[in-house]
Every structure is written in C-alpha cells, then in structure tokens.
C-alpha cells in the first residue's frame, strides 16, 4: 500500500491532497488533534519524514519530506471567554480570523506578528515571532496559558491550562514556543487576552538613526511606557528616512497622558497618525517581511541596539529592519546567503547576542539552522529533547545548521 493510500485509509479521502504541493509531496490535513496523533504514530512506524505546514505564508513549504502535515483544518476556536480574558484556539486558525472573532467579543490578543494577516496561530507560536507590541506586552510565550502538541511518535501532550497562573508540572509550553516544530506539532493553544483598548494611538517621527536614537533615550528617561516603540527602516516605513513609531494602547486616560508625556519629552516633534494611517503603517511593516526570502531576529541589550544596527548594515544591509530599541530586539528581512548568515551569527555570538533564523529557503535553513552558536552545554540538551519528543526523527526541521 502506498503512503497516500495508507493515509487515506487512516484519515479518509478528504484528508489528503496529492496535487497541492509544488514539489509533489502529498499534503495531509488532519481534522482533529487525535488525527494528527494517529498520523504521526503511523509516520514513526513507517519511517516517514514529515514537514509541518500552516498556511505556508511564512516559512516556505519546501523542506524535503515524505509528506506535508498541514494544520489548516484545525481551524476551530473552541472557547472565547471575555469574562476571563482567555481563549482556546486550534493551531490552524488564521490570525486574521481569530483577531476578528476576539474583537467581536470585546477581546484582544496583543500580538502583531510579522507576515501576512492569514498566518496561522500555530505558525506564530512555533516560531515565536512577536512584532512591535513585544515592547509593551512581551514575547509570544507571555501570551500563552498552555498548549497541546503531538510528538513525533504520535503522543498527544498537554501543557499548562487555561487559567492565568499555572505551575503544575514543567513548563513545556515555553519549550514549544519558538522551537520551530522540533518537539511536536502544536494543535491547540490557550491564550491570555486583553480587553480591546479603549484608545489606540500611533505617532511617528522621521529622522536620522542617530537622531532617533537620542529620541529613544529621551522617551525612556521620561518614563514613557509605549505599547510599541519601533524603529523602522525607510523602506519598511515607506518614508524618506528612518521612522520612530510609538504606539499607545489602553484606557483613554492612559493614552492621553502618555501622548502628552511624549510631547513634553520630545518637544512635540512626533506627528499623530489617523487610524487608517496607523493601520497601514503597522500592516505594511508586518507584511513586508513575508515578501523577502530571509528573515532573522537578534536580541541584545537595549544599549547595544545602535551597535547591532551598524553591524547588520555592514554585514547584510539595512533595507528591511524593524527594531524595538527599548528592549534590544531587532528583526531583519532581505536577501542574503548562508555564508553571510553564518558569519554574522559568529560575530554576534562574540557579542553574546543570539541570532535566530526565522525564515529562509530550505537550502539556507538547512545550512545555517534556525539556531546556532549555542552556549556551553546547550547543544546536548537540545539534542536530548529532540530525541525525547521525536525519537524517530520524523520532523524535518533545520534546528541547527550543517556547520
């Protein structure tokens, strides 16, 4: 019996689409977490190599594999609890659909990940790709109450729960977030929500990078606490010069007071955007990254932001950069080679700054790896965890590069 016939027998005819992928790899779309477990248990037994896909709008669906497991049919939202500010969603739901349904119930997931609006929730969690709102609301893991995932040998594992605090058992949720699917296919996510902000305001200032770095210092010194505080390269902001975009979100009183504080700290140099202008700015800044073949992030100390930006400019160019100088996080997008990425990672490692490759064509991912330049002792732990969760090496994930 062929692989396709076997899978059809397991999950039904409509779970398999042989023609859908560009490289001829049969795409399988299980309709439930149990079906994912059944499929991966069989994959382990048969020795099939599996690549994990969401909407295929972020990480390219190009890893060599025997089958592509897509979470597209895991698109339900079992619970939205406005009173508790929590929700449970399947991993294959598009972020745009999720956001709309949450808004209809007066709730908000304070995440603005890079990429297209239809990116799946599972993709955002698995790659831990937070956007500018990381300044005020933290990284992806800070929005997760729990996850359910399926290991490479078909075990359904639950971590965390749907309440605000939870220290029962080890925190496998944090291990899953940002592991690029190396430890399992995320099928269900419990989310921490916020009420839709009563006020949401974005202000921008154009200038040289040096000038805006000084403005950033002024903002920090004034104790202003923006939801987003993002330095955007000219191409990303579609402006002549670098742009510092500051966003406030919360109660009307909070936003009004913070805006006044920003004006006082920067001598009124910022310009407030209309709602549609603000939406266009943030949407463009997010979607641009999906249009470039390579994206990576680096995380340094706030004071090192300028030095890191200089380094990126020197080694890979600075056309597409979105940086949160207040917390030292930088995202870069563009075209580059595996050799340059390796060199950059080595240089950054010397500065104690990790580089995480977020997306790239498979040959680059395979050569460079999502992660690398591990600190002492980390490599064996990662290897041990991979063996634990994927003993048959079913998942095709470029955790580390070939170097």
């Amino acid at each position, binding site marked *: 019996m062929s692989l396709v016939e076997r899978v059809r027998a397991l999950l039904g005819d409509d779970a398999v689409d042989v023609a859908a992928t560009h490289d001829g790899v049969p795409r399988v779309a299980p309709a439930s977490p149990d079906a994912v477990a059944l499929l991966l248990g069989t994959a382990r037994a048969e020795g099939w190599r599996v690549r994990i896909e969401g909407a295929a709008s972020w990480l390219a669906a190009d890893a060599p594999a025997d089958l592509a497991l897509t979470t597209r049919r895991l698109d339900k939202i079992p619970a939205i*609890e406005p*009173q*508790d*500010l929590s929700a449970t969603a399947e991993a294959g739901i598009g972020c745009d659909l999720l956001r709309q349904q949450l808004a209809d119930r007066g709730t908000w997931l304070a995440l603005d990940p890079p990429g297209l609006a239809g990116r799946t929730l599972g993709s955002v969690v698995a790659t831990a790709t937070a956007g500018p709102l990381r300044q005020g609301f933290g*990284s992806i*893991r*800070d929005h997760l109450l729990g996850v359910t995932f399926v*290991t490479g040998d078909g075990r*359904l*594992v*639950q971590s965390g*729960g*749907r*309440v*605000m*605090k*939870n*220290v*029962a*058992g*080890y*925190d*496998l949720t*944090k*291990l899953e*977030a*940002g*592991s690029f699917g*190396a*430890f399992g296919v995320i099928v269900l996510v419990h989310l921490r929500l*916020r009420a839709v902000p009563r006020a949401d305001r974005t202000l921008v200032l154009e200038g040289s990078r040096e000038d805006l770095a000084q403005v950033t210092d002024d903002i920090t010194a004034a*104790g202003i*606490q923006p939801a987003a505080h993002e330095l955007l390269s000219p191409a990303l902001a579609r402006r002549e010069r670098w742009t510092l975009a500051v966003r406030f979100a919360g*109660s009307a*009183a*909070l936003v009004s*007071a*913070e805006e*006044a*504080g920003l004006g006082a700290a920067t001598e009124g140099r910022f310009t407030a955007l209309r709602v549609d202008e603000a939406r266009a700015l943030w949407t463009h800044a997010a979607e641009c990254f999906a249009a470039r073949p390579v994206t990576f992030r680096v*995380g*340094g*100390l706030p*004071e090192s932001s300028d030095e890191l930006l200089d380094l990126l400019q020197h080694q890979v160019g600075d056309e597409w950069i979105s940086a949160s100088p207040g*917390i*030292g*996080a930088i995202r870069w997008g563009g075209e580059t080679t595996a050799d340059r990425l390796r060199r950059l990672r080595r240089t950054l490692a010397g500065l*104690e700054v*990790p580089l995480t490759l977020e997306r790239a064509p498979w040959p680059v991912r395979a050569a460079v790896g999502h992660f690398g*330049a*591990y*600190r*002492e*002792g*980390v490599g064996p*732990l*990662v290897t*041990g*965890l991979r063996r*634990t969760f994927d003993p048959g090496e079913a998942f095709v994930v470029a955790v580390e590069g070939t170097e």
Partner: protein
Amino acid sequence: MTTTSLVEALAEIVGARHVRTALPERVTYARDGLPTHRRVPGVVVLPGSRDEVVAVVRLLAALGIPFVPRGAGTGLSGGALADDDAVLLVLTRLNRIVKIDPSNRVAVVEPGVVNVRLSAAAAPHGLQYTPDPSSQTACTIGGNVAENAGGPHCLKYGVTANHVLALEVVLADGSVVELGSPGGEPWGPDLTGLFVGSEGNFGIATRITVRLLPVPRAVRTLLADFPALRTAGEAVSAVIASGIVPAALEMMDQSCIQAVEDSVYAAGYPRDAAAVLLVELDGSREEAVAADSDTIEGILRANGARSVVGAADAKQRERLWLGRKKAFGAMGRLSRNLVVQDAVVPRSALPDVLETIGRIASSYGLTVSNVFHAGDGNLHPNISFDGRVPGLKARVDAASGEMMAACIAAGGTITGEHGVGLDKLRYMPMIFDGDSLAAMRAVRHVFDPDERVNPGKVVPVHACREWSGVRNVEWGVLAP
C-alpha cells in the same frame, strides 16, 4: 563511600563548619513553610560559591547520591525537603548581587539573594524587581526561579518566568550550562523558560539574570469592603472585564481580616466586612492612574462595595499591604497548624468556587480563611487546625483534595505559584494524562537521567505510562 567519608569529602570542599550532620541541626531543615510534610535530610551542606556547588554536585554524581537544592525554605509544597538518603544543598550563602545595570535594566544575582534585597539595591536607580511573593523578606531569588513564584503584583507584571532572562545552571552531573541571554532571546529553544518552575528537578541555578522595571511614578491603592464573599468575587470579574489592568487585586475574607486585625499587622480592615478587596493601580502618569482609579472605584461601588477608601499616603499604603502580606503569619494565631493551599480557577468562576470551598470546609468541620490573588483567580484557601487532634490531619487532607477537585472541575489547576513538590503529587493525574506526565518525566531525564536532583517531586512516576520503578514516597492516594 561511608557517611563519614562523604562528610569528610564535603568538608574538604566547603569547610567543616558548612557541613551539618548532627540531628538537631538537620532537623531544622526538616520542613519548609508547609507544616504537613517532614523529612530529615541525611546531610546538610552549604556551599559558598558556584565552584563549590560544582564540586559538591560532581562528588555526589560520582557517588550516585541524590541531593535537594534549597533556598530559604519558605516554599509551600514540601518541595525542598530531602530524605535521609539524600544531601540537602542549601544555597543561602550564594547571596551576592553580582551586577545591577541600570541602563539596560537588568541585574545578575546569585540564587541565595533574598527577593526584597534586590529591589532595595535597584531602588537608587529608580528600578525594582517586580515579582513580590508574600515571603519576599525571606525567600530567595533562586527559590523563586525553582517555583516560578508569583505575588500580588504579578497580575500586571507577570510571574518570575516573565522576568528571568538568563541562567547559569549546574546540572546533575556537575556540568555547567548557560541558558538564555541578557537580551532575552534564547540560544535555541527556550530552555530558560523550561527551567524556571522546574522545582529543582533540572539542576541548580547558580547565577540568575533578571529584568528590572521602573518603580511606578504614580500609585493608587484602594480598599473596598463587601457584605458578601460572592459579591466581592463578582466585583473582581467586573474589574477585569473593564480592560484596566490593576497592578494588584487581592481578596481577604472575614476570617482572614479578623486574624490580621487581631495581630501586630492590623491594617484597619473593616472587621464587619465579609470580604475586602485591595486594589492597586500604578503607572508612569499620575493623571492616568488617577483617572483609572476613579473608574475602578465606580466599578467596585456598582458591584456592591459598601465603601471604597483610598490610601491617603505612602504610610497608609504600606500598612494596607503589610496586613495582606503578613496575613499567613497572622493566621498562625487561629490554631496550631495551618495548611496554605494554592489553586487557580477562571476568574469568572471565583464566586461559585469560593462558596463551594466554604461548603467543603463546613462539611469537614474545618476553619478556612481565604486570602488570595483574586485578579489572577489564584486561590489560597488556608485550613487552620490542631495537628495533635487525632484524625484531624486526615480530614484536612480529604478536604484539601475536595477543594482541588472543585477547582479542577471549574476549569482550573492545582497550583498557581507554590509548586507541586510533595504536597500536590497526588493531584497531578487529575489534570494530566499518562502521556503528558510521561513526557514531563522524559524531559527531566534529559537534564537528570538518574533522577537524583530533588527526587520524588513534581511528576508522580507511578502515573507515567513509562513508569520504570522509581518511587514517589508520598504519592499513591489517587493511583489507578
């Protein structure tokens, strides 16, 4: 190796006066903050540096001897207790604040630094370490990392895991690994996040890099009193739904109020209230905090508060908080023993669950006081009892089990900040199936293949599909 030669070898590393072998000395480490578990460790050793920790752990690895890391012993789950075949490794001598970097708002500390000391050291820079467990004047940052400790102000600012950026960790074999980075981006998968809250099972954090936050420039503290516990619970839901996130939102019931008001920590809580809410709002803008405070006050009144009083000054605010943070101590007046429970429910379930807990306590003839982090739905039903009364401890255990079951039935979990330790082992199969427990145990094996670090805690091995004979001493009540 004999016990004598083990002691000599340990003394060689840390100095003889930092090895405790006499029974009266070891007995002082037989409990943590929870009085219902007692274990007398075989040997107690107090290393004074990272290198001494490494040397001790390597020695124990070579001998195959289990060990238990311990901070100040303020934990509430029996998590830092060692059996007589294990070495208790006390980390309180590693108490240096290595670095405070105000520009980047990070600090590097050793595990034995007392929580409140870090905020005190950061204060001259206008910064603070935000996680503030009630025991913060005694508990250590290392213990906070092991338990992923919370505290009242975690409602707005998050628990320990949200503030730990990087760790230096000594594994079971004595090797040293570096997890995370000062900027917060991990070198690979988020092993820092995995380590925090692992209750000492994955190794010993010997150096901890944490995020500091600015001390809020504006603070408003409100005390609201309610005629019924249910009404107070409903007011909590209304505050949360408003979209304004208070820095803290704490509840105390009448029994707790009386205990505090009868103690040296009397805070002026109204004695006739069925419950009080302590609500704190903070931020960088006085006008915004004032406006949000007014909104919250309106919500509290609209939801049944008899009165809402704002702290007039810093002194009164401090007094209100001292009463709350010392409530556990004050409840010591109620009886000889106190079991501090810890569970979390969805916030909207608070009114019903509080009533259920009251009914369970009544049915067992027990006194329960509630003081808890209402904004997070993190309950602490505290059962006062006299352990000398025959059969009473068994009733307390049974009532605790029913309370946990009620919280789970409401969609909650068995611990929000105290950890599983020994105390909650028996409840783990109520919220995790065999595959999930087996996965946790397998992860532990990556860090500690022989389960020598803090053995018998967190995961009830009998419930794991892949059980292979390792014992949990106390587990078994709910065994299938």
